[in-house]
């Protein structure tokens, strides 16, 4: 259901202000969403003054700097720092993206950092993605083939392989799904752009033998047709993929097949 306002326990209160200790002339204010499960307080926005003269170029570098030099209690996910693992997906400057590939020079004014939108917060910038993972499991993202002979390659033509371009690159960072208003309001039932792009990836795979069953399973008023082409997903994707187009292709297949 559409619920514009945040619940009472999620209302954001004013947080702490960490003044710069280095005496640097090149300072930027960074506002970070904080919530500590052990205190029982409402979430707050802490403001850090960060010395930009000694900070590398990406938003993740700022967070690392805060954690290492200012406030070690800050919690966030990160791993590869090269846009491959999708761990550091968060909302920066009002848009979802990967902190490790987003240059802070692109952000004007103060830098606002929030967790991915409309998720249950586990701590600080860490949101709970278990619903999304369950939905991903529900589309059975693995190859279904009756071929028993393992001694030979499962050959695919160059044209068939090309159909997977723009789909297989997805790293499941959830930037798209959590940017989608439809997914905010119907996240329990609507599969969301990330999972639907994956569903399409298996539907168009020429080696997969259950295309029809897959299509039938996804053809549902709530699972698929909650997509109203708002295009927030494609706008947010840090890998420049196009989930909106993938969803449209599924809809088209259902009409034409």
């Amino acid at each position, binding site marked *: 259901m559409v619920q514009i306002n945040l619940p009472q326990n*999620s209302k*954001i209160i004013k947080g702490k202000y960490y003044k710069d200790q280095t005496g640097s002339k090149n300072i930027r204010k960074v506002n970070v*969403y904080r919530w500590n499960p052990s205190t029982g307080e409402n*979430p707050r926005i802490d403001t850090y003054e960060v010395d930009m003269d000694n900070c590398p170029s990406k938003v993740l570098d700022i967070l690392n700097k805060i954690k290492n030099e200012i406030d070690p209690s800050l919690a966030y996910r990160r791993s590869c720092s090269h846009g491959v693992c999708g761990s550091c997906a968060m909302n920066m400057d009002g848009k979802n993206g990967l902190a490790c590939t987003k240059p802070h020079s692109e952000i004007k004014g103060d830098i606002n950092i929030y967790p991915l939108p409309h998720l249950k917060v586990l701590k600080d910038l860490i949101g709970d993605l278990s619903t999304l993972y369950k939905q991903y499991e529900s589309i059975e993202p693995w190859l279904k083939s009756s071929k028993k002979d393992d001694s030979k390659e499962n050959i695919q033509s160059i044209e068939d392989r090309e159909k997977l371009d723009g789909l297989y690159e997805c790293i499941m960072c959830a930037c798209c799904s959590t940017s989608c208003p439809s997914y905010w309001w119907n996240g329990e039932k609507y599969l969301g752009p990330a999972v639907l792009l994956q569903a399409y990836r298996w539907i168009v795979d020429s080696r997969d033998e259950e295309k029809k069953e897959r299509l039938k399973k996804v053809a549902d008023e709530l699972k698929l047709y909650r997509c109203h*082409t708002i*295009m927030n997903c494609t*706008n947010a994707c840090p890998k420049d993929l196009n989930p909106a*187009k993938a969803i449209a292709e599924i809809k088209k297949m259902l009409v034409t097949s």
Partner: protein
Amino acid sequence: MKDNNPLSPHIQIYNWHISSLVSISHRITGVINIVLLTIICLWIASLLLGKTNYGLIQNFLDSFLGKFIIIGTVWSFSFQILSEIRHLFWDMGYGFDLKISKITGLLVIIGSFVLTILIYVIGRQII
């Protein structure tokens, strides 16, 4: 999941862009159009009540508020039509490229005002 975990902010912090603006306007104008169509039907039905009634409504439509409502109606329908055409192209699988969707979104917004002026001017027989 424990219930005391807060919900991260969503619409409060997410940036608007052309496609999301056109999308929400498409919905709002859709609802408005249903109401407007009903009112237009009632207006036509009220003609059965005779000349005085016709004059009464005509006077209202000639007033400033009446004109505002007429222009608003024309805009609402113009926007809905153009946005729906954009959706039809999407349904055929075209126009999903980010740049193209941005341009078509802008065309819908600008076009709705151009169409409003055209329909109003032609309807009033000014040209």
